[in-house]
């Protein structure tokens, strides 16, 4: 099991009261799943992803990710978990503008203190997965939105993580680019058995998912395993 949440509650202070973003979430996610958290804005998708990604902690209950209790992790342990085992893909790509494509992908490996040759091999392989070896020297502002998101996928995958968390990865992309991105991620999911968790309300994404967890007002209202489009 990659992820397990038990009676997970997350509340945010709003003035003198609290807003409950997640209310008693109990889910488990296995290795190799291609799963989506689906729901309208404010349903708690991103909050749940942040907790699974150890960027946030639950108010009550707990989440176990790769056997680690998120609530009990120190700042350093949580940073190590993210660095070694979890890849992130964001809606707005979040690439470093002053770095080249190659340097952006290389970044996570720098933190792992890998040698230059190990980094080069891994980065070039990751860029090959996403079909961007020819753009290695380009800066993010010199490539298209679709290419930027492919760089973000390469950055998430370069360290061979067990889990990739993608928050609305296609929200800023057109249909063709969305398809390309999802196709790439699905292939990586199959080839490397990497678990992907998406937060989305994009129907294009849903067509690719193996499992969809529907959230509404911070609660799971449906959890279904579905048959996806063949690649």
């Amino acid at each position, binding site marked *: 099991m990659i992820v397990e949440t038990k009676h997970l509650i997350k509340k945010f202070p709003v003035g003198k009261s609290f807003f409950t973003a997640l209310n008693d979430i109990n889910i488990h996610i296995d290795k190799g799943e291609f799963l989506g958290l689906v729901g309208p804005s404010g349903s708690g998708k*991103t*909050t749940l992803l*942040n907790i699974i*990604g150890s*960027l*946030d902690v639950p108010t009550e209950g707990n989440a176990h990710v790769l056997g680690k209790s998120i609530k009990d992790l120190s*700042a*350093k342990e949580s*940073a*190590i978990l*993210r*660095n*070694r085992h979890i890849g*992130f893909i*964001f809606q*707005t790509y*979040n690439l*470093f*503008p*002053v*770095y080249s494509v190659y*340097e952006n992908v290389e*970044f*996570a490996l*720098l*933190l792992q*203190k890998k040698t230059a040759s190990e980094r080069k091999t891994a980065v070039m392989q990751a860029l090959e997965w996403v079909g961007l070896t020819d753009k290695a020297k380009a800066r993010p502002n010199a490539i298209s939105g679709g290419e930027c998101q492919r760089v973000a996928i390469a*950055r998430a995958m370069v360290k061979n993580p067990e889990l990739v968390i993608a928050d609305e990865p296609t929200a800023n992309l057109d249909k063709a680019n969305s398809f390309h991105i999802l196709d790439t991620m699905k292939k990586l999911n199959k080839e490397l058995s990497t678990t992907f968790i998406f937060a989305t309300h994009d129907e294009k994404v849903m067509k690719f998912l193996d499992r969809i967890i529907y959230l509404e007002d911070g609660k799971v209202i449906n959890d279904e395993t579905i048959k996806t489009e063949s690649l």
Partner: protein
Amino acid sequence: MIAFKLAFRNLFNAGLKTWLNVFVLSLAFISLVFFNGMIDGWDRQAEVDTKDWSIAEGQFWTPGYDSYDPFTIKESHQVLSHEVQQLIKNKQVTPVLLTEATAFPEGRMQTVLLRGMDVNQDILKLPLEKLKGKKNAVLIGSGMAKTLKLKKDDELMVRWRDKNGTFDAITFTIVYIFDCDVPSIDYGSLYMDIEALRKLTGMDNEASILISNDKNLTAIDSWVYKDNDFLLADIKEIISAKKTGGYVMTFFLLLIGLLAIFDTQVFSVFRRQKEIGTYIALGMTRQRVVSIFTIEGATNSILAALLGTVYGTPLFIFFTRHGISLSDTADMGSMGITASDIIYPYYSVGLIGSAVLLIIISSTIVSYLPSKKIANINPTDAIRGKVS
């Protein structure tokens, strides 16, 4: 190391903005080194000149003599003992007899000091050999000559009192005018053969002060020893005051440079919040991100030192070789300040090292102050650029 690597990468990739900050900071660095180098050069020159022309390795004063109190001159003379005569013979000391007098250049009246000195001495640079074999001859400094409008071979009537208080007068001939950067030597004194002055004043075998050529000589019977720390104290004080003025100027230049870094850092923490959130998401602790931003700011100062070295080195070499002329800007001698017309700056390793250290430490501090806010940023908000 990774923090340094990332900081350098961020800075170099940021392009023109980085170089503007670096350039302003390098100006502060260069001016700090330049000004202090000039002051140090001046300090060294002034010390060397004062020792060469006035104090050598120390002085011995007649008890009661005070160089700051002209009323003590009249009584400040004593007979040279056998021990002193032996020291003079060994060229360890040279005697100076002081007598207050009044000169009348072109009918005007001017208080002067008659300084009788051994024409064969070689402890001080004064060209007293020009007096050899000449009767009623005196030397004066070029500053005094300019002030009194006197020139070589001019005649100058001088009146003085002998040891009994009786007035006497004589017309001296100015046989030589020397150039000297030490105002206490240049201005207000007439230099003559000590034997001639002894005859004029009736102070046979007497002297007011002894100038020593021997560092180890610190006591001669009743004479009061004055070491160079005491004798150079005035110059040190003047130079220290000048240095403080220079520090103020440098402080403002440094402030501009540091403000540029502070401003960039504050702006960076705000503008680069997505980047900060992404750093954390990719596996950095907040503290590590703080260190990257701090190092980035501090690296500005390292680049400033390097850039300053690139354009400052030829500048400094030029000034070290050719000096900086002060003659057109100020007549320092007439203000009582020991300074040659051309100052040769002195740039020591210590000076450059301390300037580099000052810039690095101060820029690290101003970089850290805004960067430490990162420690309180919520990464989930930062990733979406929602930190206010």
